[in-house]
């Protein structure tokens, strides 16, 4: 069951996995209208919430795939709730500090050989410096040459930190307790967390004949296996896709017209032009008396 929230006349899906399920399992596409957390300042890809068309909502509710909840219920208030939030944060901060610490410990072990190398090099440098001081007083002896050769030989062996050294470093890490409060991470929640069960609320759509026809057409095409999105940009009611709009172009522009309404020839030309210009077929959709949806396709043909 997918939770839909009605908020100021629009229907939103706030849960990420619910939004994906709608698309993958139920072929309901909707429109993402929020900023994408990973890169908020762009319009190419948007994130939660997912806004649903009224027809999509009607279909989901009719098929029992979703329930409609009131999105305007204010959050719980009071000291308890505030206390819970603060506690949760404090707990999170402690955990974060702990993780950071263990993280550094692991890194310490990873870097042990590098540290050992560095220390060995430092020791050698010091030794050489001392030697240089000695040399300034006495002339170069053969023993020095031999010892330097020995040093070179020694370098080939991997220097290692002794157990004591390691423990000393770890103890140093343990001592650092003061983490900067400001560096802890917090989360700006996207979805509200509501433990208590909410009552479903009624959905008042469609109310007019035009809306009813749109809903019927939407449902019929959806049942035939198509994906549908809003067709406003193409001058129709819906765009009809053979597969997921991610991967395929739409085939049809669905235009809903009541069966009894007269159409002028000019209207037909207009719609035909519209479809042919964007390489789509215009579908005139109407409902017959026995409730069946009839489709009439318009295609632009020339005569030579």
């Amino acid at each position: 069951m997918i939770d839909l929230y009605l908020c100021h006349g629009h229907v939103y899906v706030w849960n990420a996995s619910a939004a994906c399920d709608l698309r993958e399992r139920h072929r309901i596409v909707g429109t993402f209208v929020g900023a994408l957390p990973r890169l908020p300042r762009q319009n190419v890809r948007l994130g939660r919430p997912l806004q649903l068309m009224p027809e999509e909502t009607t279909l989901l509710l009719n098929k029992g795939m979703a329930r409609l909840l009131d999105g305007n219920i204010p959050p719980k208030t009071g000291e308890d709730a505030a206390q819970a939030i603060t506690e949760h944060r404090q707990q999170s901060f402690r955990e974060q500090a702990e993780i950071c610490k263990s993280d550094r410990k692991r890194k310490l072990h990873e870097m042990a050989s590098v540290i050992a190398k560095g220390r060995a090099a430092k020791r050698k440098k010091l030794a050489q410096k001392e030697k240089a001081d000695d040399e300034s007083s006495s002339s170069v002896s053969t023993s020095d040459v031999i010892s330097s050769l020995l040093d070179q030989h020694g370098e080939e062996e991997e220097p290692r930190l002794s157990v004591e050294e390691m423990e000393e470093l770890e103890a140093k890490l343990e001592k650092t307790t003061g983490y900067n409060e400001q560096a802890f991470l917090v989360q700006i929640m996207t979805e509200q967390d509501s433990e208590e069960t909410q009552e479903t609320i009624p959905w008042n759509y469609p109310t007019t004949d035009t809306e009813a026809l749109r809903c019927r057409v939407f449902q019929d095409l959806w049942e035939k296996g198509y994906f549908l999105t809003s067709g406003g940009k193409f001058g129709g009611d819906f765009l009809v896709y053979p597969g997921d709009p991610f991967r395929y172009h739409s085939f049809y522009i669905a235009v809903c017209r009541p069966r009894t309404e007269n159409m002028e020839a000019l209207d037909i030309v207009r719609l035909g032009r519209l479809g042919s210009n964007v390489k789509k077929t215009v579908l005139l959709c109407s409902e017959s008396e026995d409730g069946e949806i009839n489709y009439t396709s318009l295609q632009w043909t020339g005569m030579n």
Partner: protein
Amino acid sequence: MMDSYDIAEEEDYSPRMKAAHLSAQELLAHRNLDRTVPPRGGTKDYAPDGSLEQEEKLQGMYSLYRRMLAEERVNKIGNLSKAIWLEDQGLAEVTVDKGKFWHHIGHSNEGKKYLYPEEAVFLMETNAIEVYWNKLPLAIQQAYAMMLGNRVSMEQYQVYAHLSRLGYILIRHQSREHFSWYERQIQLDEYIPLKQRIKEGSSAQVRDWFPSNQHEEQTTSTSGEPDKTEEVHRDNPARQKSKEVKSASDSPVEHSTSNQTSRDSLPKGQTSRMEGRIEQSVEDEQMEIECNRKDKTEKQEEKGVDSLVTSSYECKWDFTNISIPNVGQDCDVSEIPIPCAELLPTGVQVNNVLKINTGAFSLNTKRGRKGKSNSEHLSKIVPNLRAEDDPRKVSRNWMEFKKLCGAKREMDMSDSPVAHLWQGEVTPLVRPSDATDMGAILSRLQVIQNISLEKECCSLPKPDRSLDIAYDVFLPDSHFKKSKPGRPNLRVCVQRFSEPAPDLALIVQLNQRSSPVPLLWAVVDNGDISFYSFTEADLPTDYHM
């Protein structure tokens, strides 16, 4: 670090149907988020053919989306601003201000910083602010419910967020109706703070816009004596020059030397009386001079050298060291015919033919004399400008005079060989006097005139509904100042797709309010936003000889 990241990633795949309070581990994992946005899925296929390849591509897209959408907004406490939602005011009060957004978002009132609902929600969505309500941090879902809807419609917010995400700076539309059309055309509205203008109340007091004017009037009326000294001083050079004409030759070199002598004769340090006047701007002085010179000149002649002594020298320019070229001396003098008496208001008499030096400046030696002759004309004019007293069609100012002259010329066909053509009922569209250029004739022949709806919208009926411009939009600019935003690059008004299209009257009304800034109509179709604009187009007037 890598381990925890992997764990978090795996968890993201698992379905999470409850609101996600991230664990500490997941929070830390969010530091290493992939900050790239996948491209738009590549080229689309024609239709699904059930092939494995297509299925793989689709599943790849789906898993990418699952991961991307599940990501939460995570930030360091130190980087987050804080605000408190004040429900009764419909504003969010900023208590901790971090980051750079305050440069172009928000407003302050009595020392407190406030955000409008759309600004607060947008900042929440861009991971910049935590908004508290009753000590609880709000989730974005709650923010949508509590902050948007009543005061700011969802569509309005979506348009605000859409443009803000692109980097535009949006502020709520600041109405320009307190400024006249003229003030907007000359961009005066950018320099006068709106608050000040509202405080002043009526914009009819044009006088206020020229404070120096008022100042001048006061000084002229109250203090007569300083004016006189001023005049004395100002008229001196002219008089000196006229003297020179008689004695000296016309060469500029000579000119400057004689100036030198006149300057030397002035005693130093006589500025004490003038102190009150120093504040007055240079322009003021000059205006005054123009006005006063006319009838004072004669008096000065009598006063003679004495006045020279009493006059003070407070001009910053040292004319002794500036050699002024003789630009007007040898220029032609053109005569202006006597204006048509019947078009002038009663009381205006013009005796002589006006002579105007067509040189660019009148700095030559004849200036003094000419000034006198001009002023003779002008000083006698006491025009009766109350046109209602005059049954004749007369002009009250130069613009009207020119118009009337033009009309008169047109009517006057008596000396034309084709005069008989205008005697009947049907007359030619073009008069010989129109034959100034091709364009003028063509515009005469244009039977149906173009009108600019923006200027003549009064002829339209009232719009069937009222709508106001929603936002002023500025291009991304680091120099933008909230206190002095200047002229916006665009203005936007928001419409729902399901609403009826605006009628012509509404379009014209809003265009006029926005003028000269282009107005865009953002039409929101269930989260999809498209922009439209209505502009007047001038038909090209194309003519070939």
